[in-house]
């Protein structure tokens, strides 16, 4: 028989775990083979340059409300591209445009006499990563622009994995410079400079548990006031310490995944916050993944926060006495917040997937961890939703 190249029009299917759709096309023996222990290749945990790119497009909306008030709406189309280049490099870029509209929030805020606000924020970032045998180094530039606020940041991060790939150490530094030019002219060309330092470790705890612990320290100086709040005077220095623990657990008996995280936050303004979140990734039917999620947040007020109690005699709220720093920004008050939501993902085939996410968020002073939240805060509610499409290439 002559040696002919029959060149079958086929490329064997990848052995990495795939969406169930392709598994369903396999016969009983193939499925049994794929269930054997230790034959799957883990690409996710190894460093090594990625071989596949992905492009995602999302439309994100945000709407909030307080009783009797229609507040801010944000519509934000966003684009994200990840592409391997030249063997051991990858480039990642994203851009988002927030279109903000709605009534001006709450009476103790003003925007140059306007009662309606319209704004647009454009943000973009690009990251270049170089992969080595057991390590990777990335540099990232980020940019955000509104008519009254501009931010530029550069970040450097590195990862290093142990020989067995079960432990990955990460470290990162970044610096950003923000320029603030509020339309009310209360200040001009103000700046804020922030430096961040992070170290972390990711550990494959068991074959079904991945744990990550990160410690972040942030030093900032400059203008931290809200220029649109009449009585707002904050320190010109703000340092933050953040500890975060993330735990992903795969449940073999039903092929679902529980992703949970805890974050402790502390800053020099006196704010202390706890964040606990979890989501349960459940593959249902053949190509659908449903992910219910919940999040609890609690914070203690900043030391210079005062409750904005409207006094019928004095009128607009004002801090008692003559403190050096003061703010009635609800973001600096004591409260708790709860988010409940869910996501549905449709993995159409190996390359295309579609997703839909909806979440409801509510803040109440009484929901603070020990119950002693700031008085006089109206409950605050927000809804966020995202619809997206993603294509691998």
């Amino acid at each position, binding site marked *: 028989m*002559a*040696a002919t190249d029959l060149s*079958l029009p086929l*490329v064997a299917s990848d052995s990495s775990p795939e969406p169930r759709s392709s598994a369903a096309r396999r016969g009983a023996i193939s499925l049994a083979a794929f269930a*054997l222990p*230790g034959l799957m*290749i883990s690409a996710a945990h190894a460093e090594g340059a990625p071989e596949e790119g992905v492009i995602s497009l999302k439309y994100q909306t945000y709407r909030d409300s307080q009783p009797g008030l229609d507040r801010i709406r944000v519509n934000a189309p966003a684009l994200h591209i990840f592409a391997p280049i030249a063997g051991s490099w990858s480039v990642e870029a994203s851009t988002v445009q927030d279109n903000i509209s709605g009534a001006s929030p709450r009476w103790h805020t003003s925007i140059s006499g306007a009662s309606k606000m319209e704004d647009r924020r454009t943000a973009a970032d690009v990251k270049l990563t170089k992969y080595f045998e057991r390590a990777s180094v990335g540099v990232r530039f980020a940019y955000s622009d509104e008519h009254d606020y501009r931010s530029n940041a550069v970040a450097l991060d590195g990862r290093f994995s142990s020989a067995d790939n079960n432990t990955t150490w990460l470290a990162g530094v970044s610096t950003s410079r923000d320029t603030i030019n509020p339309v009310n002219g209360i200040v001009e060309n103000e700046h804020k400079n922030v430096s961040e330092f992070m170290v972390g470790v990711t550990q494959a705890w068991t074959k079904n548990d991945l744990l990550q612990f990160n410690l972040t320290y942030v030093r900032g100086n400059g203008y931290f006031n809200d220029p649109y709040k009449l009585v707002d005077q904050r320190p010109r220095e703000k340092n933050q310490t953040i500890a975060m623990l993330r735990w992903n657990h795969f449940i073999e008996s039903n092929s679902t995944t529980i992703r949970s995280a805890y974050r402790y936050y502390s800053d020099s303004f006196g704010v202390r916050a706890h964040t606990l979140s979890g989501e349960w990734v459940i593959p249902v039917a053949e190509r659908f993944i449903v992910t219910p999620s919940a999040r609890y947040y609690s914070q203690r007020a900043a030391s210079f926060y005062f409750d904005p109690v409207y006094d019928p005699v004095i009128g607009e709220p004002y801090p008692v006495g003559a403190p050096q720093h003061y703010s009635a920004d609800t973001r600096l008050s004591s409260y708790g917040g709860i988010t409940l939501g869910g996501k549905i993902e449709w993995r159409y085939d190996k390359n295309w997937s579609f997703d839909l996410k909806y979440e409801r968020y509510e803040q109440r002073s009484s929901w603070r961890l020990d119950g002693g939240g700031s008085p006089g805060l109206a409950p605050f509610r927000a809804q966020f939703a995202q619809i997206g499409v993603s294509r691998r290439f």
Partner: protein
Amino acid sequence: MKAEIAVQFAAMASPCEIRVLGVGRDAAHAAIELAIAEVRRVEQKYSRYRADSVISQINALAGSHQDIAVDAETQQLIAFAAQLYHASEGLFDCTSGVLQRVWDFRSQRLPEQAAIDALVPLIGWKFVQWDGERIALSRQGMELDFGGFGKEYAVDRAAAALASAGVEHALVNLGGDVRVLGSRADGEPWEIGIRDPRPPENAPDQCFATIPVQHGAVATSGDYERFIEIDGKRYCHVLNPRTGWPVSAWRSVSVVGGLCVQAGALSTIAMLKGEGAQAFLDAEGVSYLLCDAHGEVFRSG
């Protein structure tokens, strides 16, 4: 791409080769050592020729009415063997190794029918008592044998060991059962040659086809590895467990799959299926290349 590192070695009574590229020389050799160690581990644990293997321990208790507990890896392999038995309607039976007692492919003599008839009662998955954790062979003289997928399993485990060591481009070949990771240089797939089952005398290793593979496995079952030829009729080593006699419909069956253990089991069962091989492989959703008894080649759509 850095230079390709290739290491040849012998394992499971076969010539073996591992090739790695895309990583530095030292890293490649370290990864290959890890992979070879994994092959040796599988061989020691499951070889029927080693008295201390798990398989020998199970076989030693055949007919004694004693069962034996096996570890998690062995449990999954036995479960896999059970699935192969049921999915092949009894054609793939990992208790059929006893037939090798009478089929001696080094000699050119056929066994006596009476000798075969005496062994057939010892063949049958239904005589295996298996509860998921403990196993017993209920008839004295029975033998369990992972020969039908053990080498292919070792191929996949070796590939996983390479991947865990950070290797993304590699080929593992244990006696013709092949698994590849990633592409070759320049993103080209690996070209896996399929041996001509009836090569000319002056070129015994001639290939009659090549299959491009990226991230997958190729396994071939053929009638040319071990056989007895008498009066122009070939009796190969692939034996039907029901009759105890060799199959003859195909000279060679090559299957391309994601895993070598998958491709290997499918190619063996396809050999046993005879005329039903193509329909069977189509239903399993894999690609294949078949050469029938007359030399005609069939391939998947």
